[in-house]
Structure formats: C-alpha cells, structure tokens
C-alpha cells in the first residue's frame, strides 16, 4: 500500500540518518524521498514514499515522533493533498524522430532544457503517474538516462504543517 509521509525535522548533521534508520531497521524499502530546508532554514522537510501496510507505517510514524529531532509527521495519503515530482530525461533524438519527440514533450508540457545533435534533455514536472506515462510514450528504446527528484507533497487547503511554538 502506498504511504506518503511528510516529515519536518531539524536541519542538522545526523538528523536524516536517524529518520531513515527506522525504515532500514524494519526492512522497509524507501521508494523515493525528497528533502530540503523549508521557509525556516533551521528546519528540513522530507517527503518519503514507501510501500507498506498500515500497521507498519503506524509503528514507524510513532517511532519517528519519538525522535528528538523530528518536529511533525503526517501521512499525506490520509488527507487531500497535491503531489509533484520533477524528472530529467535524456533521450536519443535523431533525424525525423526529433520532431516526434518534441511533439510528445509538448503534449506532456515538458521543456527541453539541453540539446545536442542527437539528444534532447527534457524536464517534466507532475504527479509521478504522468512522468511514467511520458516515459511510456517516448518508448524505452529512446531513453538514455532518467533522473527523478522523488515526490514532494503538500496538503490542500489552508492547513499547514509547521513547528509551532518552541519549548519543551
């Protein structure tokens, strides 16, 4: 079952590995993760995608909350949310195919960010399913390299995930 955790934690050395250790310890694979500082640069936000059952993820969530450096955890699959991922794809594009690939890129609202005589590098943003759809459309034979950022997620509506007031 897909689980998408949003985790706010201290932006300091060693904090991320404590978070990830909880998954490794239970033999739970992480499908993707994306992490960067928030508007408050002392805090990092991580979006983590994993496939696991509800009970395991609940235990992990409780243990994440136990970590001293972790400030907030929510599972985005339980709330209305927006998901986006960025992908860079290097495709081989030669002769007549260049036009065709450019068209497919436009349909998916991708941007060509680098060009050589026989390749395009295309940037695409969207929900993960759209990125996978694009790869499908381009065709495996043309794909030279794929880099994905991992999913970022945010809740819909006015509610925010924030640290709240400091204090013990």
């Amino acid at each position, binding site marked *: 079952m897909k689980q998408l955790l949003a985790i706010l934690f*201290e932006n300091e050395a060693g904090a991320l590995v404590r978070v990830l250790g909880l998954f490794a310890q239970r033999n739970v694979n992480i499908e993707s993760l994306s992490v960067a500082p928030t508007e408050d640069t002392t805090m990092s936000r991580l979006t983590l995608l994993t496939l696991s059952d509800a009970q395991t993820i609940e235990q992990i969530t409780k243990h994440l909350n136990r970590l*001293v450096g972790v400030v907030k955890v929510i599972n985005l699959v339980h709330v209305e949310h927006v998901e986006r991922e960025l992908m860079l794809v290097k495709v081989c594009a030669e002769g007549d195919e260049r036009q065709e690939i450019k068209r497919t890129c436009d349909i998916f609202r991708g941007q060509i960010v680098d060009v050589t005589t026989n390749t395009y590098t295309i940037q695409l943003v969207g929900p993960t399913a759209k990125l996978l759809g694009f790869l499908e459309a381009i065709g495996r034979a043309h794909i030279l390299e794929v880099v994905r950022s991992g999913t970022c997620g945010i809740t819909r509506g006015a509610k925010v995930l924030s640290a709240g007031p400091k204090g013990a």
Partner: protein
Amino acid sequence: MTPMLTADEMLVRALIDQGIAHIFWHPGGASFPYHRALSKCEEIAFVLCRHEVGACHMADGYARATGRPGVVMLTSGSGATNSITGIANAYMDSVPIIVICGRDSVGHSVATQLDETDMIGVSRPVVKHSYIVPTANDLPRIVREAVFVATSGRPGPVVIDLPRSAYESTVKYEYERSEQISLRGYRPAESGHTGQIRKALEALLQSERPVIYAGGGVIQGDASPALLTFAECLDLPVVTSLMGLGAIPGANRLCLGMLGMHGSGLANNAIAHSDIVLALGTRFDDRATDDPEQFCPRAKVIHVDIDPSSISKTIIADLPIVGPVNEVLNILIQLANDKQELQSKRNVRYLSWWKQIDDWRQQPSGEERHTKESDSSNRIHPQDVVQTLYDETRGEAFITTDVGQHQIFVAQGYKFSTPRRWVTPGGLGTMGFGLPAALGVQFAVPQGMVVCITGESSFLINLQELSTCAQYDLPIKVFCFNNGTLGMVNQWNQIQGHENEFLGYAESMPDFVQLVESFGHRALRATSLDELKQAVYLAFSEEYKNQTVFVDVWVDPNVLVLPTKKRGSGTSTEVPVDS
C-alpha cells in the same frame, strides 16, 4: 560575571551543574584531554571500572535504584564500542544513562576525522538520542539537554561524542550555565486526556472482573504510591510484569504476582478471565502475553503509557491514554474521590470476582514447585535460597540479577516491598549485568542491602568487576546459583525435546570460592540447605556486614522453572469462569 573555563573544565562544570555526583569510567587516549579537570574535581566521585560494559551496567543499576541519570565516561574506538551491550540494555529497559565518549583522531574538525570508529553510527539504533559536540561552547547546553532527554518522557540512554577538536586546553571560554531547553521536536506528554481518563474510570466501575496490569513504567514514573491508593480505592487486583515487580508491595493482598510465561497461575488466571485490563506503563512484551490472541480475550483494554509507540503495538487498546502514569493515576484518584457512591459501595464491588481470585489463591495449581521425582539428591532447591534470603532481608534488599533460571526464581519468590529495588535486565536479557549493576546500586545507596543473584555462567561474563568492588570496598552480597549448566537454555532445550549434551561445560568451571577469594573478598560455599542458611546468616551478620561476600550455592541442576509452557500455548490453561 561568567567564569572563563577551558574546555575540560567546562565539561566538568556542566556535569556538576546537572547534579551529577558519580561517573563510571574507563580511560584512554581520547579521554586525556579532560583528565586534568577530572583529577581536580571534588564534587564528582570517579569510579574506575574494569570494562566499559561494566561501567554502563553500573550506571544503569545506579539509575534504576534512584531515578537519577547514571553517567559513563569512556575513550574512543574499542573503549566506546565495548559499551554497546550496556547501552542497548539500558535502552530496552528505558533506563536513563549518559555515555560520554572521546574521539581521538587527527584533524581539527569533526569532518576531517575520518579514521575514527563512528560511535554515533554504531550506537544509533540503541540510543534515545545522541550528540556530537561541535565546540566547547556547546558543552553546557548539550550536557543539560542530554540529562533532560535521558530522564524525561520514556527515559533512555543518550550518547555524547566529544571530538578532540572540541577542546583546546589553553583556550578559555565563557561558561554560561544552561537553563533553557528548547527542543521543538521533543515534548513528552505532561498529562493524560481527561475525557479518556473519565471514560476509563466509568469502564472500571461498570466492569465485573477488572485487573490492573502494572509494568516498569509505574516504577520509572514514580507512580507506585498512586497505584496503591487507586487500587485500594476501588479494590482492584494488581498483576505486574517482570519489570513491574515492586510497583505494588508483593505481600499486599491486592498483589497477584507476576504474569506471563513464568508468571504465577493466579496472575495468569486473573488476566485470562478479566473483563477489563487497566495496563499501566507496560509494553505487553511477548514473555508477558505469549500469544496475543489468547491474552485477556474477553477484556476491554485501557492502556496508559507515556510513549504512544507502546500503545496498541501488540494488544490493541480499546481506550488509549497517552501520559505519565503518575499524573493519570492521580486524576483517576481525584475523580474517584469525587464520586460519593464509591465510598459506600467499597466492600461490595467485585465481590464474586474476589471470591474467585481467592479460590485460585487458596489452591496452588501444583505447578508452583518442581521436584524431580526420581531425584533423591539433597542438593539445594533454588526456591529455598530465595525464601531464605527473603526471610533474612524482609523484602527490603536491592536485588540485581543476571539472566536465567536464577532470575526467574527470584522474580517468582521474592516479594519486593518497595519499588526500585528489583534490578534485572528484562528487555535485552543481558547475562553479565548482575554484578556491575549491584556495584552501581551500592554507590547510589551506600547504606542499602544490595544482593546480586546470579548463575555461574552469567557471573563469569563480567567477573572482572570484582576488582572494582575490592577497590571501592562495596559490601554487596553475591549468591551464585551454581547448577553447573546454562540452566535456562537447557530447560528450553529439554522442553523442545532436544539433546542437552552439547550445551554442557561439565568439569571446566573454576572453583568459585578460590576465584573470588583471589580478589580479596570473602567467599563461602553452600552444598546443603543448612550450609546455605548459615551462609546467609553470616553474610548479613555484624562481622561480615561491611564486606563483600560471595556464596557459591550448589543448587539442584534438575529443578526447572515453572510453569513450563511452550511458546504459543497461551498464558492460561484454565476454562473460563463464565462466557
């Protein structure tokens, strides 16, 4: 004016400001930078241990007996990694210890010290939190936070890694006493949800067969007096986990003893037939519940714990309450006192349930004492040793144990009168814990009666600490249940129907009396019940009272710990009282 201190002085000062009075340590290259300040420090007693794991177990025993953090100081590399079992042991039993390790490698910042053993990484899965000290200026804050994190919420070990770059012995820093704690990611619950607590009381009052199940959290959370008050107020029977022994006086009528795989028939029957269980500060360990499906099958479960991750982990709680057990019990008492009708009905509530419990109490299931019929040996029965010690110490000794049959015999037979006197490695099951833990307890409670009950195999694991014991003149009493085997392992092997030969060490054990005497301690041998009684009498006599005494007790190797149940067979074999 803020004093100007060198880095080593900062560390010592920060520890003193946190009220640290003892440090259990083992030095080395990476601890040199602070030796100067340590040697000048008069407020803190430095206990030189013989092994790092011994130091950790001492700090652990010290912390369990007092609730104050036990502090350990070590060098880098093997000095640090040797402590891992001790840290893991404290982690499993939620004991507040703080382990400070040095890091001694070339390079002037943490980032350039690449060749050092990564103690933070090695210890990560078994600590509550850990710190690398970036500069000496951070020491007061980190020491303050470490003490706070270790002792608050669900307590646990904290590691502090002190890189050499954090001290420059000539530079002086401004020392500012750290008062404020700002940890936005760490806010242990301060009280339970009143609505939930109210519901819990109603559910208890409406039940017919209630049981309180008290775990180690009651002891760690200093909630024993509140537990007794509340149990008396409603006339509720109490069973405890292994770690919860002493949460309620063992000889009290309300106490039904320990539950679980090695628990009493009475406690297991009560749980199995209950219609409501009020679980306090316990994690429903599998030795307590056995098969969770068969554990209290008809009961509604109210689970109070400071740590939300303990709740609904193995047994789904019908009514979860996150909060400190003591606070929650105090609110329950308050609510109960506000109810007028409670006062009048005290003696009629749960009448038939108590009658049933007292019936069980009257007729021991026949499983309480194991004697091999074919066996005519007059070697000492382990339960007689526990009884003799209980009679001598009136339930008031601090008892540390190792792991094995001897441990369970004490758990079953010694009725602790007060909390924090039962010091056993319950979660990790660490053989080698008993002796150093006893030393730690004696440091914490110099006037206390401290007894270590061990098995011959467990004892050998950390016997080097007999030397520490000699150095600091600690009058602990050690009773080694010498059955000549890895008793507990043998027993399980036997129950599974396997051969036992390959587990034996036959004639290769030392003469324990000579061994212990060589450290300068008193050592006695008891091969019969009379000799045992004599030895116990001597150990606590005026003459030997202030000395370390070791007694090699030759217990009957054929005696098994009862009840002996295969895993998965459920905690109760009785038929339901009703349906």
